[in-house]
């Protein structure tokens, strides 16, 4: 199936820094995807390229079968909700929403009806004649969404639209926006550095790091099977062990780590530096349940963080490593300093090649 929005080999440099290094991204019609990554990894740059606000140095952008690479933004049918909303301060709420329709020279009656419809969809119907400056952040955000959607774009781009809102409001708006976009069937690319937001809202998530997409998959896969050590560390909580493979047999590696010897599924040559990871809910405090398919570690309780529905336990294992364990409740008699035994399944371990040392890379270059 040909993708609806297809970014192929998009590259961008600013001076001598490569901000995007050949990014490929294929989005299906009606899909809601997120670009998730730390600040500065190139999310906004990629978005601006799709919108036509920035020309790629190399690569192509195809939308609905049309090559847009050199098409100016006003002929792309790509709407953007900017991080700061970028509402027109000299226009009212309704005039802001009408802007794109008037630019497309739609008849006045159609403009009025469409504006009313979209203001209704974002629950801003009563605010049509207000000036922009009289709105709260959340209201401005809704107007920006209505303005971008009113032109019925082929693709809707959203650049961290909730980053300026407080958490409670953000959660409601996430659900409202997702439902609205699904109802309208609008293909959407959503930029965020907030993993919870991405996991909640997206059909698929593209995890970005240093100008590259490290993994593009549905949220469950991203969480359960992170493709890289970076994706593991960036999405969700995990404990990390750095070590060297000492034995490799039948798809199981044995790794010497400062915390002790651990086993994990994986195929690496003995001597390879690797990173092992495991999710907090996959670890348990146990007694002697160690078996051939389980890892066990002695640990000391450092801190207990009660979180309502569950508790996080921070435990010190050998070599100064601190691991996080999720427990359904705070264990009885848990006090900092208490010795505990950790147990976790080999199959739940994730193994990645260690990030090449930046110093070594520099030396090789």
């Amino acid at each position, binding site marked *: 199936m040909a993708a609806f929005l297809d970014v192929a080999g998009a590259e961008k440099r600013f001076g001598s820094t490569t901000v995007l290094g050949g990014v490929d991204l294929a989005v299906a019609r009606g899909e809601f995807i997120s670009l998730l990554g730390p600040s500065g990894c190139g999310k906004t740059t990629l978005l601006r390229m799709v919108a036509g606000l920035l020309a790629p140095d190399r690569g192509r952008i195809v939308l609905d079968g049309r090559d847009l690479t050199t098409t100016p933004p006003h002929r792309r049918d790509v709407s953007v909700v900017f991080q700061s909303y970028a509402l*027109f301060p000299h226009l009212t709420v309704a005039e802001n929403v009408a802007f794109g329709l008037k630019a497309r020279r739609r008849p006045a009656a159609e403009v009025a009806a469409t504006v009313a419809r979209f203001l209704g969809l974002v629950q801003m119907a009563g605010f049509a004649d207000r000036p922009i400056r009289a709105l709260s952040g959340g209201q401005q955000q809704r107007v920006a969404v209505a303005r971008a959607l009113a032109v019925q774009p082929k693709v809707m781009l959203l650049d961290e639209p909730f980053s300026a809102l407080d958490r409670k409001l953000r959660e409601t708006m996430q659900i409202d926006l997702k439902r609205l976009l699904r109802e309208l069937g609008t293909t959407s690319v959503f930029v965020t550095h907030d993993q919870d937001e991405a996991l909640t809202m997206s059909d698929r998530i593209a995890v970005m790091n240093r100008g590259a997409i490290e993994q593009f998959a549905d949220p469950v896969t991203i969480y359960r099977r992170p493709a890289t050590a970076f994706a593991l560390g960036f999405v969700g909580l995990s404990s990390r062990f750095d070590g060297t493979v000492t034995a490799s047999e039948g798809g199981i590696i044995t790794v010497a780590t400062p915390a002790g010897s651990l086993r994990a599924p994986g195929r690496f040559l003995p001597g390879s530096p690797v990173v092992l990871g495991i999710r907090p809910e996959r670890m348990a405090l146990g007694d002697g349940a160690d078996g051939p398919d389980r890892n066990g570690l002695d640990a000391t309780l450092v801190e207990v963080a009660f979180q309502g529905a569950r508790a996080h336990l921070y435990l010190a294992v050998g070599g100064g490593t601190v691991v996080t364990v999720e427990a359904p409740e705070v264990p009885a008699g848990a006090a900092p300093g208490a010795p505990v035994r950790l147990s976790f399944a080999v199959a739940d371990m994730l193994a990645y090649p260690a990030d090449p040392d930046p110093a070594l890379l520099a030396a090789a270059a």
Partner: protein
Amino acid sequence: MRRRIDPVALLALPAAAYLLFAYGWPLAALLVRSVHGPGGFSLAPFAAFLSDPFSWRVIGNTLSTAGLTTLVCLAVGYPAALALAWSRGIVQVVLLLSIILPLSVGVVVKAYAWQIVLRRDGIVSQALVGLGLWSEPQRLLFTETGLVIGAANVFLPFMILPIYSVIRLLDPRLRAAAATLGATPLHRFLRVTLPLTLPGIVSGIAFVFSLAVSMYVVPSLVIGDRYQTLATLTGRAFLFMRNEELGSTTAVLLLAMAVSIVVGSTALARRLGSTG
């Protein structure tokens, strides 16, 4: 409700005191003299001045040169302000210097340059003939056109700089947003950039018009005595004719024009600014 004076306003105290003594005081004396004849309070000098057709020609000259100068400055200055605000790096520095540096060249020096440029065989005349706009070379020096060209030359920075300072503060994302909503470059300019820069245009017009309406040196140098404006007439009345009554009358009329322009445009700019 009683308003308390904002203590920050005290920072303007030195400027206010200076203006009071160097400007307010003589101005008040002038005002008094214009309505205080030998026989006490009287508006007779105004009535006499305004009943003379020559005076109306002077007022007409004043308004038309100031108005034309302002128009020329706006037409040339607005695009220049855009270029200045949207250029980057060395180009921007060069543009800024070429706008600011001429301010440091005295009007007399400029006037000497105009004598060369505006002559019958000067570059302007030759260019217009070359373009086929004029059938034969003409002298621009000592004409109203020459005066407007010269005045616009002197006052152009006062149009460019206020507009530039407003454009510079415009959020570039507004234009980007307009583009992604389907607005062509022209539509973006007319519906976003222009309305949001109106406050700058209004202050530019106020600056240039109030400077041009009261200019004295430029008309004296470019055109001489044959063409009188309120400002040159005021100067003549005080300096050559020793007619203080006439001088005070014309000075007050001039002041009234400038004040109404400044007050009106400030009010307009504030209203535009409150939505933009």
